[in-house]
């Protein structure tokens, strides 16, 4: 493998080339495309038919150190003639940089033909100009190329990009001992190298010329950042066997080994971010084409058993770079952390395969547990749209086991509700009495307040009416007595007011006493005489002292009215009258 023996073919002149058509060919051939400032360049203008009036270009930037040398060859092979005429110049460059060999012209059969201009790169002066080593390096440069092929230069974020590094070499040289000097790191990319088990030489074309090539390295990259990303170059150290002009004893060409460092793949990739419009809320960065599958190994079980739910996404895309949608289960199911499994193959088209999460779920109580559908969204870079996949809802039936003592019921009512013995989802109720949906509220309605207060109102109304009735049914005698009693009090108080005014005082006092007797003894004023009063009072068993006191006050009143005595003792009389009335009142 390392020794690639290849045949060498002559670069410039082909004396025995076969010319099929009589087409005119006139072209410029250079000994090298790159040379040091102190090196020489051979330029040949070759035509396949004889011409005249050859005009060379003015070799701008070069000095002509030899030529023009003219050579003509004419040969017949199998009766076919081939002709070649060449003008050769030897030049040295005058300055560094890219120099152009201009157009030369020739007149063949009366027509003017021109060559196309060719570019030459002039570099720094080399140490050993025109030495075999420099020549070998130059040949190696021209015949060995490293190319990085990038599948896409403007991918979407997370869309697979493949980079293939190909080592092209012409059949003139052979390549041995390739090793990597610098590996690209692919920062800002998720990268995967596709291993190449055996290097194979294939035929291909490089810039229109036939070349052999070896695919050295294949990488799949997933850009992780939007924007302009730069790929680091791959640098290889290659030993190249370059043919020399020398021949060995047997006439075989002697090859010279020359080391060569080549670099390729400093490329920039413009990564597009995913479109914002239509991006689903649950989008988690999956790009590619996928399929979602949610499976349960059982849908009916006892509460002591466990079951497994598998969430699987399969397809092609950045499978390792997104997380699976989380399984959501009712809170009363015990869900353990999922087991993650990946079955992914990576080839030039990207990652392919499936990732899955396996959840182990243990129901604690019996009942029906709906597992809500899972939604998984991805971006399809080919169709440039977001796609959402939904799994189906599953219903897990746990048919045996304890019933939930649901914590959400606690507090409000459940603490008092014995649910322990109930371990079955109850059947429907078969009896009902329907009531109107929208019922007028009774509580706090006016009817309610009326009903609440009416018995008490009734009570007070009845009590009031009863009292009024009692007042009406009192007999006239007692009414008169009450009236007299009131009058007695009235006169007594007016007597008190009139203390000091003799006449008015005694008048009031007398009236008070009379009225008092009227009230107490039920007598008329017509019966009013002292004897009668004494008699009546005695009948009521009054004490004699009180009776005499009463009579004496009456006499005093009369005396005071008619006799203008000066020694009146109004205060004492008043006090005596009050005492006597009080005493009589107790007795009667």
């Amino acid at each position, binding site marked *: 493998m390392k020794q690639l023996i290849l045949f060498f073919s002559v670069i410039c002149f082909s004396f025995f080339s076969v010319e099929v058509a009589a087409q005119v060919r006139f072209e410029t051939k250079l000994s090298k495309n790159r040379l040091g400032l102190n090196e020489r360049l051979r330029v040949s203008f070759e035509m396949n038919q004889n011409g005249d009036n050859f005009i060379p270009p003015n070799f701008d930037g070069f000095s002509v150190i030899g030529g023009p040398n003219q050579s003509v060859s004419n040969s017949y092979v199998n009766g076919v003639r081939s002709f070649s005429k060449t003008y050769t110049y030897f030049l040295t460059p005058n300055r560094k940089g890219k120099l152009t060999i201009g157009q030369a012209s020739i007149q063949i059969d009366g027509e003017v033909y021109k060559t196309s201009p060719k570019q030459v790169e002039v570099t720094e002066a080399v140490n050993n100009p025109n030495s075999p080593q420099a020549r070998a390096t130059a040949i190696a440069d021209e015949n060995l190329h490293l190319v990085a092929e990038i599948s896409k230069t403007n991918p979407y974020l997370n869309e697979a990009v493949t980079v293939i590094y190909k080592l092209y070499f012409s059949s003139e040289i052979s390549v041995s001992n390739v090793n990597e000097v610098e590996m690209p790191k692919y920062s800002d990319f998720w990268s995967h190298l596709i291993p190449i088990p055996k290097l194979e030489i294939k035929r291909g074309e490089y810039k229109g010329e036939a070349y052999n090539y070896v695919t050295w390295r294949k990488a799949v990259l997933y850009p992780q950042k939007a924007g302009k990303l730069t790929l680091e170059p791959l640098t290889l150290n290659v030993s190249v066997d370059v043919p020399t002009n020398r021949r060995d004893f047997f006439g075989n060409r002697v090859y010279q080994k020359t080391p060569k460092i080549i670099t390729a793949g400093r490329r920039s990739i413009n990564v597009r971010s995913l479109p914002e419009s239509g991006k689903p809320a649950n989008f988690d960065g999956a790009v590619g084409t996928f399929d979602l599958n949610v499976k349960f190994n059982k849908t009916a079980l006892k509460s002591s058993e466990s079951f497994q739910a598998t969430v699987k996404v399969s397809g092609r895309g950045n499978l390792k770079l997104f997380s699976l949608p989380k399984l*959501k*289960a*009712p*809170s*009363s199911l015990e869900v353990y952390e999922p087991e993650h499994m990946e079955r992914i193959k990576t080839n030039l088209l990207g990652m392919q395969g499936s990732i899955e999460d396996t959840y182990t779920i243990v129901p604690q*109580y019996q*009942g*029906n*547990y*709906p597992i*809500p559908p899972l939604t998984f969204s991805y971006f399809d870079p080919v169709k440039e749209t977001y796609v959402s996949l939904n799994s189906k*809802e599953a*219903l897990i039936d746990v048919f045996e086991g304890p*019933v*939930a*003592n*649901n*914590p*959400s*019921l*606690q*507090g*409000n*009512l*459940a*603490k*008092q*509700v*014995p*649910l322990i013995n*109930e371990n079955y*989802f*109850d*059947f*429907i*109720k*078969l*009896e*009902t*009495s*329907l*009531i*109107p*949906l*929208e019922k007028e509220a*009774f*509580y*706090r309605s006016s009817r*309610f307040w009326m*009903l*609440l207060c*009416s*018995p*008490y109102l*009734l*009570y007070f109304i*009845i*009590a009031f009416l009863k009292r009024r009735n009692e007042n009406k049914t009192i007999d006239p005698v007692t009414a008169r007595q009450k009236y007299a009693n009131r009058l007695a009090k009235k006169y007594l108080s007016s007597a008190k007011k009139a203390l000091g005014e003799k006449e008015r005082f005694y008048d009031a006092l007398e009236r008070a006493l009379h009225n008092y007797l009227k009230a107490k003894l039920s007598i008329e004023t017509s019966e009013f005489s002292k004897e009668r009063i004494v008699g009546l009072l005695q009948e009521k068993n009054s004490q004699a002292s009180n009776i005499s006191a009463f009579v004496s006050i009456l006499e005093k009143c009369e005396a005071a009215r008619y006799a203008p005595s000066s020694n009146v003792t109004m205060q004492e009389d008043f006090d005596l009258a009050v005492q006597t009335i009080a005493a009589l009142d107790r007795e009667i």
Partner: protein
Amino acid sequence: MRTNIYLFILLIFPFTTLLGQSNTTVFDQANAAYNGGNYSLAIEKYEAILNDKLHSAEVYFNLGNAHYRLGNVAESVYYFEQAKRLDPMDKTILNNSSFANNMTQDAIDKLPETQIDLLQQKVLAFLTLDQWTIITLVFAWMGALLFFMYRWNNHIRFKRLFFSLAIIFVLTTLVSLGLTQSKLALNSIQKAVIFEREIEIWGEPNTRADILFLLHEGTVVEVVDALEGWSKVKLANGSEGWIQNSGIKRLN
């Protein structure tokens, strides 16, 4: 006095009137459909009863059962909650309701409650609002009756007895009135059930605000405020936030 007694009797039994004989047959048909496993038809028939502006705890309970059988989380929880509102003490309703709550995804821890709160809730759950109202009226009438007996009884011993009993009844009436009022307050708590599979709870009643947390189908929330298509909801664990009305269904 006689008319009062009639009125009173009318008050005690105002709800025993049988309404919609045809609807009871619809109810029986729905039950038969349920037993036959045709849950969708059963749901249709039960809803026909509700469309006739009639309801009962049993209709809601059976609807909840049918939805549970079909695995409809939100509907099932919703109808069991409705059934609980009408009959808060029924064991079978509570039992099946806990089954339905098992299907929900949100695990919400209740805030701890004091023993007094729990006792009050227990007492209030014992009777419906209407029953509490009737009890209050009965106490009030008993108190008034005792006052009458006190007033028109001549024996001093009975008078005393009736008077103290009357006072006790008046006080009981006041206590019962207070309980009825708190029962009304309890009933006026607006509750709602989440009907969206997953819905955001926002910090403000607009989508420019932050999303506070997510709720899932079947979770029961308390509605404390409302504004232009948004409702402020409170969870059992005390957290609050705004939710779009399209995602919830209110119980009352």
